[in-house]
């Protein structure tokens, strides 16, 4: 029953065919509380499953019942019951459970039970427990499943053919460097490409099966069905690596598109149209089933160009058709996703880009050319330059042969500490600090510093907050704006949540500015002028 907890961790709702109305009817029949009492209580509690759990007056209910028993005995049978039997089953369950257990039970029925656990962490845990590779766990859990013993048995049975075909290759770590790079430790003769905000992925076509894997080993087929369609036109035995970035007619590539798409369980035609994306190919890992990762990049680039030329040809023939006629049906797509729902109306009306394109590469053989490209990164709305040696080097520094992300020099601003967010339930421990700049005559928030800093930095800020709190709003403490820090940042993002209209990207503490008055804090206009 490992999948029971998993299902609720990921907010999957069991099909119980039971709604709020039925639960309210049980309450009314058991407590005589009319609807107006339930409504009034709900306004106070602000959570319907909890209100119903609290209203059901039961003095018993200290039964130690496991989650799996609850699911098997009470939740799963509900969908097959008559209305009367459902009410009786729910009443029996409520009688047995404590108030807290009743809250969870109601949330399971109504679909509001979710814990904030990262998908990748859950998959890692399931992999360790079951002994199945994480990528296989991730892929199998996309399918439609119920937390039952039968399904679990099939879940843990090996299927080597499919598992191998869909397995991702190793994602080589990208070395991130702040500029200026150490020239003594950095040899030129590079191929470079602009890097944009997006998701690093592998697009895989093997044995007529197409898959997109994220760097966190999460299959993204359902989030990006139009890209799967593109990948399905690749020759079998091909693995490409690159970035999925937002797409627009003009630069910059919209950052939010990829995030929006990653959040949806299954992308609909409307989502695809409203948040278009493109797979920018940067490298080739496999061709004709042969691993190329150890070949020189010059060779990989040539192979990649051939593959993408062939793909462009295929796309020009098949890309505008609603059905992909001469490509064998992709059983993964058939199982997981009804492509026709996405593709039916796509071709004529669409203004979507081709799903894939080869990144533009340029050679950097001199420092001047590298620095020149770095200097225009912000104009291009790029996060930096992705570089790789054209030929492998016999270097003691193994990192030299890997992809390396060079970032443009960060900007700096003087910002005042405005508020701090406490760790819930803890009076003295803070998890986020908000800094502000002047806009007209008031300080408005422009940057949030998270937990990436050292304990010492955070303690120092925390001590200031404890001594200078003006007002508490829940977990948020507003402080006297007397503390000025020099903050470095990489870019400016628009923000509709902040009065300043901007949010500094990757803001980090540099140093505390003692002897600097609040009036010396930067203005929003000054910050904008830096970029």
């Amino acid at each position, binding site marked *: 029953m490992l999948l029971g907890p998993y299902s609720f961790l990921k907010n999957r709702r069991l099909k119980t065919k039971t709604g709020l109305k039925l639960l309210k009817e049980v309450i009314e029949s058991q407590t005589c*509380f009319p609807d107006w009492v339930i409504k009034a*209580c709900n306004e106070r*509690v602000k959570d319907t499953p*909890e209100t119903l759990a609290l209203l059901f*007056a039961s003095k018993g209910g*200290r039964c130690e019942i496991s989650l799996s028993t609850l699911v098997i005995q009470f939740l799963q049978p509900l969908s097959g019951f008559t209305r009367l039997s459902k009410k009786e089953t729910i009443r029996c369950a409520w009688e047995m459970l404590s108030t807290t257990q009743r809250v969870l039970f109601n949330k399971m029925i109504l679909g509001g039970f979710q814990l904030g656990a990262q998908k990748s962490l859950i998959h890692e845990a399931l992999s360790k427990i079951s002994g199945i590779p994480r990528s296989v766990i991730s892929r199998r859990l996309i399918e439609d499943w119920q937390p039952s013993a039968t399904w679990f048995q099939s879940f843990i049975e090996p299927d080597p053919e499919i598992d191998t075909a869909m397995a991702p290759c190793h994602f080589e770590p990208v070395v991130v460097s702040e500029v200026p790079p150490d020239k003594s430790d950095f040899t030129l003769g590079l191929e470079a490409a602009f890097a944009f905000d997006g998701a690093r992925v592998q697009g895989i076509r093997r044995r007529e099966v197409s898959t997109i894997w994220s760097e966190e080993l999460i299959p993204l087929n359902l989030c990006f069905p139009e890209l799967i369609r593109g990948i399905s036109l690749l020759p079998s035995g091909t693995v490409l690596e690159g970035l999925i970035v937002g797409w627009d007619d003009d630069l910059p590539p919209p950052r939010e598109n990829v995030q929006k798409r990653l959040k949806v369980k299954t992308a609909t035609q409307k989502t695809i149209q409203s948040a278009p994306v493109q797979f920018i190919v940067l490298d080739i890992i496999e061709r004709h089933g042969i691993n190329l990762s150890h070949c020189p990049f010059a060779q990989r680039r040539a192979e990649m160009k051939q593959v993408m030329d062939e793909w462009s040809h295929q796309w020009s023939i098949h890309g505008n058709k609603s059905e992909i006629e001469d490509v064998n049906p992709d059983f993964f797509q058939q199982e997981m996703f009804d492509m026709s729902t996405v593709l039916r109306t796509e071709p004529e009306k669409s203004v979507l880009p081709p799903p894939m394109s080869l990144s533009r590469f340029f050679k950097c053989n001199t420092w001047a050319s590298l620095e020149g490209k770095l200097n225009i990164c912000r104009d291009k709305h790029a996060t930096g330059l992705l570089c790789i040696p054209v030929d492998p080097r016999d270097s003691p520094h193994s990192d030299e042969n890997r992809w390396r992300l060079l970032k443009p020099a960060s900007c700096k601003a003087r910002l005042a500490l405005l508020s701090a967010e406490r760790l819930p*339930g803890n*009076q003295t421990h803070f998890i986020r600090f908000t800094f502000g700049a002047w806009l007209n005559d008031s300080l408005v928030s422009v940057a949030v510093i998270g937990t990436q800093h050292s304990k010492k930095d955070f303690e120092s800020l925390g001590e200031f907050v404890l001594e200078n709190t003006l007002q508490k709003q*829940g*977990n948020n403490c507003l402080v006297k704006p007397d503390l000025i820090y020099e903050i470095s940042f990489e870019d400016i993002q628009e923000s509709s949540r902040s009065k300043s209209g901007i949010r500094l990207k990757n803001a980090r503490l540099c140093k505390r500015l003692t002897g600097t008055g609040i009036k010396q804090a930067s203005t929003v206009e000054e910050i904008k002028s830096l970029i």
Partner: protein
Amino acid sequence: MLIRPTPSGLYCEQGDFYIDPKRKVNRAVITHAHSDHARRGSEQYLCSKPCEPLLRLRLGKNISLQALEYGASTSICGVIISFHPAGHILGSAQIRVEYKGEVWVVSGDYKTYPDPTCAPFEPLRCHTFISECTFGYPIYRWPDPNHEWNHLKKWWKTNREAGLSSVINAYSLGKAQRVLNALKDSEQTVLVHSAILSFLPFYISEGVLFPEVMEATPENVMRYRDESLIISPPSSSMEKSLGDPCSWQSLDVSGWAQIRSQKRKKNLPNGLIVSDHADWEGLCQAIQATEAEQTFLTHGDGSVLSRWLTEKGLSVSQLPENRSTASLHAS
């Protein structure tokens, strides 16, 4: 109209006294020693006998104070006043006011659940009942206190085994003593804040049992932090003196811990659901037991309780603040 609300509090014109006045008055009749009911500055005070030492501690030794045993009465300008147990905290009382055969009862704060630290609530028949209504929603039903105390003992034991300090946030008068009484069989020392410690002798003189306690001075806290339970008022921020947030666990003791959204709002991540106020059932039972012709609700939102009981055939309404006698009659 024997008792009416005024800006200074509930006023009895015939006897010229106020019940739990909000401002300085000539004559104050006090239900119990909590600071929102017993305020400084009045000329004369009247309270129950067990409440007397607590009131003197809070308001000063030299206040002009008369105390009556539970059930005993006194007459002020022809108005007969007596105090009857309310079960809220030590010395808490309902105030029975009788004038020319008309009986009003002002409940003050009360609870109907048994509490070993104070006399149990005593239902009183009356013509008009003014009841508190802090938890006047049916979502508030207190679990068996013994279950909560067992949870507290397990929690403390778990923390001790994990080498963590245990901090209980509880009001210094009433709640803290209830917690201590629940731990009376404990073999470990309990550290208590000085504000709590000052009330303990009065409880002991009434026969309430406590475990071995020590004052939670900074030295004692650092010395016994890994084994002791520390009880402090919520406002004392005892956790600050314990340093590293990973080295301690805290627990609040409050009826508000019943609802998750209110726990979040009041920043109570963990809580024992133990209250010194009546829950929904307690309020309904207490009001019905008075057999009062009319009931007024105060201290809290009584909209649901008043409508619920009115639909059951009782005359129940909310007591408006600062309302004139005429409009109160009209209601």
